[in-house]
């Protein structure tokens, strides 16, 4: 296995900010080497735009380089996720047994902790966050994906509680030095990247995945909307989903129809 990527804790980092390579070369180039370490980034997009695949590629890329990685699956059973990942060359199943890659079924957490009802109360939100904190301690994860934040936010419902949840989650992730992708399922309406709109205000970055029409086809596109500490382009890129992972190419706007 390759040696671990050097990764100073964000709180102790000095000089130019260390970058966390996503494994998607073109995206790393846009981000001047990757996501700033310790950042929490929203990966927003409508259904089928590649949010989960991008997140998994980010996680697998880290795990393969010796960074412990944790996938918190809210919407899809972890076993089904593994089945879906087998079609990608970047997926190495043996990482699951080494502790480098851990997939967690959040519905099991709900069930075991008695949080499996429609709306979580404030004390239950605290229990849930304390559990995530403990998981991060135990796993020593440096890369985390939560798929999806939207499903979780539906169980919190109230905007002020979602804000408190996001702030506390962000504190926990920062304290553990995690670089995190939070998957956000959104509709096709422009200008909003999360269920309530409060989530994107708290995160460090927003990657927007969407659809665009070209010659009657629907293309996947990606845009970096926000990335703190990184001067970046906000240009749209066409995303190709291939067996080796996501490939990005510039999107020539003149050829496109309205975004979906």
């Amino acid at each position, binding site marked *: 296995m390759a040696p671990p990527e050097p990764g100073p804790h964000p709180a102790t980092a000095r000089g130019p900010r260390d970058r966390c390579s996503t494994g998607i070369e073109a995206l790393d180039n846009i981000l001047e080497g990757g996501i700033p370490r310790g950042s929490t980034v929203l990966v927003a997009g409508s259904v089928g735009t590649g949010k989960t695949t991008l997140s998994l590629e980010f996680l697998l890329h880290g795990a393969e380089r010796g960074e412990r990685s944790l996938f918190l699956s809210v919407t899809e059973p972890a076993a089904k996720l593994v089945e879906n990942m087998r079609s990608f060359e970047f997926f190495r199943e043996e990482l699951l047994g080494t502790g480098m890659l851990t997939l967690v079924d959040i519905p099991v957490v709900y*069930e075991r902790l008695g949080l499996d009802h429609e709306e979580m109360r404030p004390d239950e939100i605290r229990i849930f966050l304390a559990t995530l904190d403990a998981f991060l301690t135990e796993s020593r994860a440096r890369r985390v994906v939560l798929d999806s934040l939207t499903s979780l936010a539906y169980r919190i419902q109230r905007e002020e509680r979602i804000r408190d949840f996001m702030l506390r989650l962000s504190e926990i992730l920062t304290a553990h030095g995690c670089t995190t992708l939070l998957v956000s399922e959104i509709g096709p309406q422009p200008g909003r990247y999360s269920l309530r709109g409060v989530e994107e205000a708290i995160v460090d970055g927003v990657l927007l995945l969407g659809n665009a029409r070209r010659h009657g086809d629907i293309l996947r596109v990606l845009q970096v909307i926000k990335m703190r500490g990184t001067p970046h382009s906000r240009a749209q890129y066409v995303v190709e989903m291939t067996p080796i992972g996501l490939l990005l190419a510039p999107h020539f706007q003149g050829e496109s129809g309205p975004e979906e």
Partner: protein
Amino acid sequence: MKERPPPVFGIPELDAVLGPALPAGWLGLLTGSPGSGTHLLAKQAAHAAAGSGPVLYYATHESAAEVTRVFESFGWDPLPITIADLGRELHQEQLDRDIAVGRARARGLALAEAALGAPAVPSGAYPPSLAGRLLTDVAPRDAPFRLVLDSLDLLLERGSAEETTRVARQIRHQALAVGGGALLVLHPAVTEPRTVALLEVIADFVVHLDLVEDGTQFYPSFLLRKVRNHPECARRFRGSVTGRGMEAQF
């Protein structure tokens, strides 16, 4: 010669009014205030039918052992009665889960308990249906039976008012079809008035028990407040409890 149906309560004064007025299959509603003797009268109604066919006694507030002990304390043989402790059946699973959740919260969840490959969680998501349980027991009956459910509270708590009245109608339908009777106990103080009223409409008779103060003494008072098609049967009885069970005088 056609066999006479068993008495409803085993209280001659009350049975003498009810017996001739009821159809061969009936549904009765026993309501009462706390402490007035509804649980005891429910058991007496089960005992009254012992030996005449299958008798099913469903307890929701007492264990089968407690029910048996009360039977024996009045000299009633519990053996012919099938006693089901629905409270234990339904609450045990919930209790087990609550304990597991309490422990998991106290000690914290280990990653391995929720990670891929973790052992399956015993599911509390689909608790057994009380309505389904009752109807499964009653539906195959093809001969007169006696059913006593003490009480409907659990059905109302676990299901809905609509489900409860539907079950009451189905039990009555089965009793009408094959003969026998079903007595459902209801506590009006903890039930929506509309649900109480609807159950009273469905029932062939309604007996309400109260505890009446008489100086320093208390005695149960029976109000036979409805007998279908026989409004003249409505009346009040003064009750008492002896070593043989509940008794009544008109």
